[in-house]
């Protein structure tokens, strides 16, 4: 699933490790989500949304809903 995580993280000048620590996941997990190799669970997606003060659909691209 495509997402804006890398852009949002860069805007805050956070490393992957920094974001991972704030989310309670590993740096590798952040990398896997950023590169689209892993779709986060709903609880993790909500944690991300809260952290960036956005809605989930503002971070993740709902490919099924975009034709």
């Amino acid at each position, binding site marked *: 699933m495509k997402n804006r995580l890398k852009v949002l993280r860069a805007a805050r000048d*956070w*490393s992957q*490790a*920094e*974001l*991972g*620590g*704030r*989310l*309670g*996941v*590993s*740096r*590798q*997990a952040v990398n*896997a*989500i950023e590169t689209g190799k*892993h779709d*986060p*669970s709903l609880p*993790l997606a909500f944690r991300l949304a809260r952290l960036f003060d956005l809605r989930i659909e503002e971070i993740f691209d709902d490919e099924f809903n975009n034709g």
Partner: protein
Amino acid sequence: MTNLTMGEGERAEARRRARAIAVLAGSVVCALLIIGAAWTFKQSPGRIAPAGAIIIVALYLVSMGGAFWFACRKSDEVEARDTIFSLAVAGGTYGLTYPGWYFLWKGGLLPEPSHELLYIQLIAVLTIAYFWKKLR
């Protein structure tokens, strides 16, 4: 040592990584001790002393049980995904290999299945599948 240039999240990630490395290193050391002990006993004729067998099993259960407990408590969802995948591949491989070897042995085509080889195969496939999933 705490790096003051690190952010709050990076320090948390560094602590998590340090714990994971410590548990992994401990598990590897225990596994190597057990493999070494098993190899030594295999080279020498006769049986293992009952106390020795109990110590080996206890050490194995504690190290594997501790690693499993840690993995369940501290793993994130990507780690859990990789672990479940590698366990499924290793279990599937064992489930195919052992019956195949068993019936070929019963048919007189192969020697009796080797417990040691099957266990080593299980661990090897588990390790390869885990790192393939993690690093690809």
